[in-house]
C-alpha cells in the first residue's frame, strides 16, 4: 500500500528548500503552490474529481434519497438490475447502488481521513523528534521504524485484525497506528536537513529552546512535506481499507465501505450482475489515480523530494 508510492522519483537531485526563518503569512505560500499546481493539468482534473467525489458523497444524499440503512425494507429488491427507481441497480441486500456509493464513500473517506490524521500526527512527531535529537536516540528510533517497515503492511494489518477483531473504530486505529512508519522516516529527513540550517542555528545561538525551535521553526517549514505526505497517507489508508474490504475484512454491516461493496459485487459478477461491480470499481480507481496525481503535483509544487519511505 504505502510502499507503492515510495519508489516514485527515487533519483532526482538535492532538495530545494524554502529558505527563511519563521514562515511568512500562509497566503503567499498557498498562492505560490496554487500557481505551480494549476500548471499541471492532470492534477487540476484530479483535484476536480476528488472534490466531485466529496460533493457526491456528502451533498449527493440531499438530492438523491435512498434507503441505505433499513435492510428490512430493502431486501425485497435484492440484486435488482438498473431500471426505474434504481439507476444503478441494487446490491445483494437490495440497497440502491447509487445511494450505496455515497453511503459507502462517506465511510471510506472518513475512515481514510481519520486514519491518515492519526498516522500523520504520530509520524510527524516521531520523525521530527528523532531527526532533531539525532544521535543514539535517533538511531534507536529509526531501527524500530526500519523493522516495522520490513513487515509487509497487509500482513501486519491482518495479524492485528486476527487478534482484536474488527469494527469501525478498530479499523481506524489499526490503519492509523500501523501506517505512520514511512511518514516518520520522511519527516525525520526533513528535520535533519532543517536542523543544521542557518536560521535554526541562529535561533539556537540566541538561546531558543528545543521545544520552541521544533514548534516555531522546524514544524512550519515542513508544512509542505506534511501536506504531500498527508495526501499520500490519505490515499494509502483508503486503499488499505478498501483492500481489507475486498478480502472480506472491511467495515461490518450495517455500515459498509467501497472495498466491501467490491467484494460483494465480485461474488455476483459471474452471473452477470455487473452493476454491483463496475461503478464502484471505476469510482474508486479514478479516486486513487487522482490522489496519486495530486500528490505528485504537490511534490512538484513544493519541490519536495520524496526519498525512499
Amino acid at each position, binding site marked *: 500500500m504505502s510502499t507503492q508510492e515510495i519508489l516514485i522519483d527515487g533519483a532526482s537531485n538535492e532538495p530545494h528548500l524554502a529558505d527563511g526563518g519563521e514562515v511568512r503569512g500562509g497566503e503567499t505560500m498557498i498562492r505560490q503552490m496554487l500557481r505551480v499546481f494549476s500548471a499541471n493539468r492532470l492534477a487540476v482534473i484530479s483535484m476536480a474529481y476528488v472534490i466531485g467525489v466529496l460533493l457526491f458523497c456528502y451533498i449527493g444524499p440531499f438530492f438523491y434519497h435512498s434507503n441505505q440503512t433499513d435492510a428490512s425494507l430493502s431486501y425485497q429488491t435484492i440484486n435488482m438490475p438498473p431500471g426505474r427507481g434504481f439507476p444503478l441497480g441494487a446490491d445483494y441486500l437490495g440497497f440502491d447502488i447509487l445511494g450505496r456509493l455515497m453511503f459507502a464513500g462517506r465511510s471510506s473517506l472518513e475512515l481514510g481521513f481519520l486514519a491518515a490524521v492519526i498516522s500523520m500526527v504520530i509520524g510527524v512527531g516521531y520523525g521530527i523528534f528523532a531527526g532533531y535529537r539525532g544521535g543514539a536516540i535517533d538511531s534507536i528510533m529509526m531501527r524500530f521504524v526500519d*523493522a516495522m517497515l520490513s513487515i509487509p503492511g497487509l500482513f501486519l494489518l491482518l495479524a*492485528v485484525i486476527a487478534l482484536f477483531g474488527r469494527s469501525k473504530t478498530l479499523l481506524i486505529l489499526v490503519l492509523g497506528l500501523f501506517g505512520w512508519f514511512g511518514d516518520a522516516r520522511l519527516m525525520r529527513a526533513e528535520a535533519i536537513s532543517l536542523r543544521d540550517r542557518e536560521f535554526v542555528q541562529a535561533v539556537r545561538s540566541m538561546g531558543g529552546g528545543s521545544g520552541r525551535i521544533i514548534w516555531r521553526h522546524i514544524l512550519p517549514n515542513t508544512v509542505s512535506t506534511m501536506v504531500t505526505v498527508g495526501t499520500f497517507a490519505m490515499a494509502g489508508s483508503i486503499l488499505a481499507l478498501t483492500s481489507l474490504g475486498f478480502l472480506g*475484512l472491511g467495515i461490518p454491516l450495517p455500515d459498509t465501505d467501497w472495498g466491501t461493496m467490491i467484494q460483494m459485487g465480485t461474488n455476483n459478477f459471474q452471473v452477470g450482475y455487473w452493476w454491483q461491480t463496475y461503478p464502484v470499481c471505476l469510482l474508486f480507481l479514478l479516486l486513487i489515480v487522482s490522489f496519486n496525481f495530486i500528490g505528485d503535483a504537490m511534490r512538484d509544487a513544493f519541490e519536495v523530494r520524496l526519498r525512499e519511505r
Partner: protein
Amino acid sequence: MAQNQTSRFACYCFVVLNYSIRRFFQGLLVLLVVSFVTFLLPALMPGNIARALLGNHATQAAVNQFVHERGLDQPFVVQYWHYMVNLVHGNLGTSLGAVTLDQPVAQVIGPYIPRTLWLVSGSLVFSVVISVLIGMFQGIKRNSLFDHTMTFIIFVLFSFPAFLFSMLSIIFFSLTLHWFPPSIDSPTANGFWSPLQQMISSPAQFALPLMTLTVLGIGGLTRFMRGSILDTMVQDYVRTARAKGCSPNRVLFRHAFRNAVMPLITILGLSLPGLFGGALITEQVFNYPGMGQLTVQATNGRDVPVVMALTLIVTVTTVLGNMLADIGIAFADPRIRLSGRR
C-alpha cells in the same frame, strides 16, 4: 604497481566485509524487533488467552494446567526467551484453527511457503527485465512522445490497486478473451520445487497472477531506472567516454547501464514488502494456496499463532532480501554503498 593493486584489493575486501558484517547485524536487530512485536501482539490480545482458547467450560484447574504447560505463568522476559529459543529451533507453536487444531504451526504453513516465494521471485524477474528495458529507453529518448506516454501509462498502472488490477485482468483476459484461466489449479505436491514445476508445466494459469504482480512492481522500478539512467548519463565518466569518442551505444551499455542498474538492486529489496502484500491479494483472487491466502484464512478463523508465524516468515524473507541486496551491491560496487547511509 602490482603491490599497490593488492593492497587496494585488500582494503576493498576489508571495507566490504566490514560493511557486510555491520549490515548483517543491522538485519538481525530488525528481526529481533519484529520477533518482539509478533511475541508482544498476542500478549495484548484482550481477555485471558487460556480462557479464550479453552472455552468457558474448562475448569479452573484445566486453565491453570494450560497456563503452566505453556509457560504463561512465567515472567515476561522468560516467556520471551522461551519464545526466541523455540523460534530458533523452528518451533512456532501449535495452530488454533478449526481444521488444523493442535497441529504444529511449522507443519501447517510449510507447504505454503515455497508457493509464495516462487510466485514473488517469478514476478521479480519479469519486473526487472521489463522495467530496465522501458526505463532505459525512456532515459535515452528523454522527453519524447514515447517517454511521456510510458510515464503516463506506468503512473496509472502503478496507481492500480492489486485487487482491481487482478480482477479486471480476469474479466478482460479470461472472461472476454478466453486467453488464460482465471485461477490456478490446486497444487498436488508440496515440495520446494513443485511450485516451479507447476509454473513450467502450466504457464497459462500463472500468466495473470504473474502479470498482476509484475505490473505492481514495474511502476516504481521503471521510474527509478529512468532517473538512474539520466543521472548516470551526466556523470563524469560517461562524459569522458563520450569525449574519447566512444559510440553512444557503447557508452550506454558499457558505462551508463551498469552503473544505472546497480542501485536498482537496492530498490528491489525495498519493494519486497509491497510485493508480498500484493501477493496476498493476488493469491486470494486467483485461488493460489500460498502464504497470503493462508493468512486471510487464518485471520478469518482467528488462528493467531499461524498468522503471527506467517507475518514473521514474510518479514524474515524481506529482511534477508534487503540484506542480500545491500551486501551484493557492496561487493559489486563499494562506491555506491559505503559512503551513503545504511
